[in-house]
């Protein structure tokens, strides 16, 4: 049994470990370790295409995570105090649906939408000058925000459900109008959940390839860049990028976990 578990972990993590190790390879070959060097990191970080993709990924991740946190929080608050079996089930399903389905669905939805709106927009100005909707930042951010919102809602629903309702009543009893109660009691108590949701959303967006591939239009996110470069062969530079993405993601995930754990200990007075 332990051997079996060890084998599973080996299959899971060995390829990742190989990537991390070879990112420090001094040689150009992806399969022959010839010495330790960080030159590929330098190469990756000075490659304008990589930096451009990184910038795109960062903007998309930050924007979608912000939107998901704000609207996810509002949705969770609106559903607060109610048992909503169907709503909860739908949020979970949204998280579990394979990315490829979301990607295709978003693509079809957006293409259809653009097909309706663009002819209308075309009426606004002469040929070629009227604004036209197209895939790009907007569709990337929208698709990621929509997916991440389910994550945020699930985290916050759990947190709100574990929160003592009488705290809000106590605040009202102590003369705080509803918004003051929200600002002084509800928000501070669910803030760790919002922060964790934000970090998870950011990580999801930053790492996502499948959904982005469908809706990115002419934009290139880091995972899309990596995918297209790999077709020209795996270089230590790609390994370096992969390792950096991995490190950032792990860091954010661990931070989110710590925030959620620490927050819930305090929240349960």
């Amino acid at each position, binding site marked *: 049994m332990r051997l079996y578990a060890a084998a599973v972990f080996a299959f899971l993590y060995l390829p990742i470990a190989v990537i991390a190790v070879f990112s420090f390879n001094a040689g150009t070959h992806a399969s022959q370790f010839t010495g330790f060097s960080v030159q590929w990191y330098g190469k990756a970080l000075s490659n304008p295409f990589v930096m451009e993709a990184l910038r795109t990924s960062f903007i998309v991740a930050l924007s979608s995570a912000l939107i998901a946190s704000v609207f996810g929080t509002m949705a969770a608050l609106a559903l607060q105090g109610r048992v909503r079996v169907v709503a909860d089930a739908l949020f979970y399903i949204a998280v579990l649906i394979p990315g490829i389905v979301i990607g295709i669905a978003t693509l079809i939805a957006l293409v259809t939408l653009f097909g309706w709106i663009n002819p209308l927009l075309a009426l606004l100005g002469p040929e070629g000058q009227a604004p036209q909707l197209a895939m790009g930042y907007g569709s990337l951010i929208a698709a990621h925000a929509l997916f991440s919102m389910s994550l945020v809602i699930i985290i916050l629903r759990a947190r709100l459900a574990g929160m*003592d309702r*009488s*705290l809000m*009543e*106590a*605040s*009202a*009893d*102590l*003369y*705080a*109008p*509803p918004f*003051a*109660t929200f600002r*002084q*009691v509800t928000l*501070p*108590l669910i803030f760790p959940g919002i922060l964790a949701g934000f970090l998870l959303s950011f990580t999801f967006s930053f790492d996502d390839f499948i959904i982005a591939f469908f809706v990115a239009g002419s934009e290139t996110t880091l995972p899309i860049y990596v995918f297209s470069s790999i077709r020209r062969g795996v270089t230590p530079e790609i390994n370096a990028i992969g390792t950096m993405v991995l490190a950032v993601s792990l860091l954010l995930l661990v931070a989110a976990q710590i925030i959620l754990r620490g927050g819930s200990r*305090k*929240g*349960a*007075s």
Partner: protein
Amino acid sequence: MQSLPHGTSATDPDTKPLIAEFRAATKRYGDILAADALSFGIGKGEFLSFLGPSGCGKTTALRMLAGFETPTSGEVYLDGERVTDVPAYKRPVNMVFQHYALFPHLTVADNIGYGLRQRRPRPDRAEVARKVDRALEMVRLTGFGPRRIWEMSGGQQQRVALARAIVNEPKVLLLDEPLAALDRKLRREMQIELQTLQRQLGITFVLVTHDQEEALSMSDRICIMQSGRIVQSGSPTALYDQPVSRYVADFVGKSNFIDGTLMTRSGNAGQVQTATGHRFAGRLAGPLGPGANASLSIRPEQIGLAHAARDGAEPVTVINRIFLGEHTEYLVRHAALGDLLVLVARQAEAAEGGFAPGDAGHVTWAPEAGLILGLD
């Protein structure tokens, strides 16, 4: 308002001006009638308790006064103003919650100052700090201000909750089973502390509890509740001596009940006959008529226990003896009447000689000690 049985009144308008009043306040949750046309007044400076078993509507009544629930019908008045639809944050009352509901993200001092900081115009920091310190001193927690809530013990949290409420000088302080989570010794201490505090501050206290000892020891007046209604209200002594029903007698103090049928009644005296044919005389207060199901209630301390048989004494066997210091509590068994509780004072026991389980004895009580009550 229906007329209440004699000797009790839900409102006491002649003694004190009213600070709060319910007028036929009803609260329904679907099919459940949690408050059934509650009508009563609360006198200024009074310590009033709602006493009744779990689920009888005590919390609902309190929450309608706090503003967390709006009555389905009827009105609530506070200090002469109609507040039926006024939200909680605009009502000059404060509540001590059953599980304290202290804010876990704030310090003890910030919890206590919370209500003061919501005032507009906002009082300055120094004034808030001064009032918070005074409140801490009042609940004997001087110096605990900077602590976090989870660093406080249960009893200390209880006091913080109390301080957080009284610091606002509310017109009415509402307490929902505030001592239920404390252990016995601490509860007794807090009862005394609450009572002292209430006298010191002169604030009206409304307490909800299912613990009769708590209600009896602290209140000026108790409202006994049964399925959403107040069945009797009065001073602890009045409730103990003149309960209007078996339900009340059972809830206030301990009592023995002998169930049967009211056979005869003349004025305030009547006779109850048990299913086994035993007849007992007793006092009668309610509107009960002959033929009604009734119960003879005799308080344990009004029953005498003797070795020798006397005229009118009933033979019993001693089942159990519990020494309580000043008193000894005996459980005795009568062949027809079942088990009876007898409380014997120390001196009486010394004079008569003690009983051991298994001993035979005889119980007697004065006819006026028996109170004939309706069964509801």
